[in-house]
């Protein structure tokens, strides 16, 4: 089959590899009909994610048709059309039972690697480095899905691929980011980053009752997309973001702040240049300009919700400010399984049509070029969907 493989920073190739097979009783094999490139894939592409190996198959946002199931999978049958969570979870360990699916104990065969960094390991993920299990990803014609009896959910025939696909990651991710803000009816939520995750955070914040959402980015078409959802927008290259937020909230600050940017934050201020210098000589791993700003801007006693990915060590992290203001910080890989059914219902009921975010429709062969286009936000690119 064809698959998108990682060969190093900025080096993505489409190659032929052996088809996946059922290896465990709870596996299924999915024939991929649609797969997307995520902002998280850009962190790999940018060389920020450790324990990637040459030849690893990328991709964690995918859906398709079941073509084979292991003997213990009774919930799915060949021919079912499903969308698959990017987090791999057994459904039976303490963490799965608590609804903390992305922290599953039993799905990461390389847990020891993650334990060296974090003390305890999170779940396995598709196509996201060996530290997260080394699972071949879904930017391919076929993919093996472990624990297929608890992960994938069936897609109603009325919904298109593009309506259902983002249940695999970015819709639940934006939704969890907003849910973590504990939004009350009159709240103002500020969202850093108007990429796909930011877009779903904005819409989820409104769904969960926010009165105002203020969206921050510098890319015009992304800001326009945010405005279309009802957000007020700030271009961080035109205005001083903390100042603007202060004024817009009557000197109090937003009730909650969402960092939907992550470890490759771009910035125009001194701390951002400092990050850039340090990460480029490997003295630090992550650039946290957006996160620093969110912590600084948040009102006293507010919540900073962090769907943006961080991989290693942060420098100049303003913990003192977070402490002084009594902030709540919430973060982590999304517990996708927890949100899929309820969000599927919202889509089916027409409350939201996630396909609004798609700007590019291509084939797998276009992956190498599209990673570049998405990274540089060329051609008004917000979200790329590939059909194998």
């Amino acid at each position, binding site marked *: 089959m064809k698959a998108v493989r990682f060969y190093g920073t900025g080096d993505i190739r489409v190659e032929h590899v052996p088809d996946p097979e059922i290896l465990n009783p709870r596996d299924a094999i999915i024939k991929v009909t649609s797969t997307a490139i995520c902002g998280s894939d850009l962190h790999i592409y940018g060389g920020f994610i450790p324990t990637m190996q040459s030849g690893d198959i990328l991709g964690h946002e995918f859906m398709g048709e079941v073509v084979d199931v292991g003997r213990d999978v009774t919930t799915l049958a060949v021919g079912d059309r499903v969308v698959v969570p990017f987090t791999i979870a057994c459904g039976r*360990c*303490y963490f799965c039972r608590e609804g903390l699916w992305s922290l599953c104990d*039993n799905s990461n*065969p390389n847990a*020891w690697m993650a334990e060296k960094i974090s003390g305890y390991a999170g779940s396995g993920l598709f196509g996201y480095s*060996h530290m997260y*299990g*080394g699972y071949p990803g879904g930017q391919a014609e076929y993919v093996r899905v472990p624990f297929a009896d608890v992960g994938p959910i069936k897609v109603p025939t009325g919904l298109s691929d593009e309506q259902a696909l983002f249940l695999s990651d970015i819709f639940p991710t934006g939704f969890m980011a907003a849910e973590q803000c504990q939004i009350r009816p009159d709240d103002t939520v500020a969202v850093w980053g108007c990429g796909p995750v930011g877009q779903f955070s904005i819409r989820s914040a409104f769904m969960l009752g926010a009165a105002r959402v203020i969206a921050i980015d510098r890319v015009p078409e992304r800001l326009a997309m945010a405005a279309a959802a009802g957000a007020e927008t700030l271009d961080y290259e035109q205005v001083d973001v903390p100042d603007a937020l202060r004024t817009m909230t009557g000197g109090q600050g937003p009730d909650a702040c969402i960092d939907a940017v992550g470890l490759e934050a771009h910035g125009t201020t001194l701390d951002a240049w400092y990050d850039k210098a340090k990460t480029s000589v490997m003295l630090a791993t992550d650039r946290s300009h957006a996160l620093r700003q969110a912590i600084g801007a948040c009102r006293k006693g507010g919540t900073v919700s962090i769907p943006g990915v961080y991989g290693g060590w942060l420098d100049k992290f303003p913990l003192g400010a977070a402490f002084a203001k009594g902030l709540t910080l919430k973060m982590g890989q999304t517990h996708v399984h927890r949100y899929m059914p309820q969000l599927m219902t919202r889509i089916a009921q027409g409350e939201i049509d996630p396909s609004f975010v798609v700007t590019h429709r291509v084939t797998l062969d276009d992956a190498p070029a599209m990673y570049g286009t998405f990274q540089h936000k060329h051609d008004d690119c917000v979200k790329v969907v590939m059909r194998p």
Partner: protein
Amino acid sequence: MQHSSTYSPSLRDLDTAGALTLGGLSLIFAATRRPMVASGLALTSGALLYRRLNGNRRQVSGRAETRAALGGQRGIHVREAVRLEVPIEEVYRFWRQLEHLPQFMSHLESVVEEPDGSRSRWVARGPAGLRVAWDAEIVTERENHTLAWASLPGSDIVTAGSVTFAPVRGGRTTQVTVHLQYAPPAGRAGDWIAWAFGRAPAQTVREDLRRLKQWLEAGELATAGLASTGGAA
């Protein structure tokens, strides 16, 4: 001390068990303690064993041998624990059938129990086709609570192990705590121990327990379908 709290329930319960049990267990506990405490415990347990077993010379001397080899802080000691969302009876039943151990203990090739369940033959694989073997007997058996075993004289390796099963979180979760010992080795057996446990014996056992947990909780061992990189490296 951290491990006294883990072990205290079983120690407390020991007066209800036979003195043989106490002797066997204390030997194993003794070896985990600081040297001074250890020698005290080892002495007591040795005496206890002797008192109960003086009808059976061969075994007594065998146990003494095992005790001598495993006493104090010598050899490899590993203590690791894992929690499972599986009823305690199920975990105990699985482990008590020693034949199951090679399913998750990576260095074991086979364990064969004698029909009466008292003794077992353990075969472990090593580097370059090397195999080491030993006979062991169960020295403590308390259903859903404790299992301890020790090698018998004449084996390639002097080893003992214990596992305790404890309900936690109001009985919804089972905690399994394992203590393994291997005597200071020489020759072939020493090569095997160096190979099987490497520089990080605790890591080897932690991976074993992780597999046990995967097997009993998830019903399968997680794999990405790639050549395993192994945790002990």
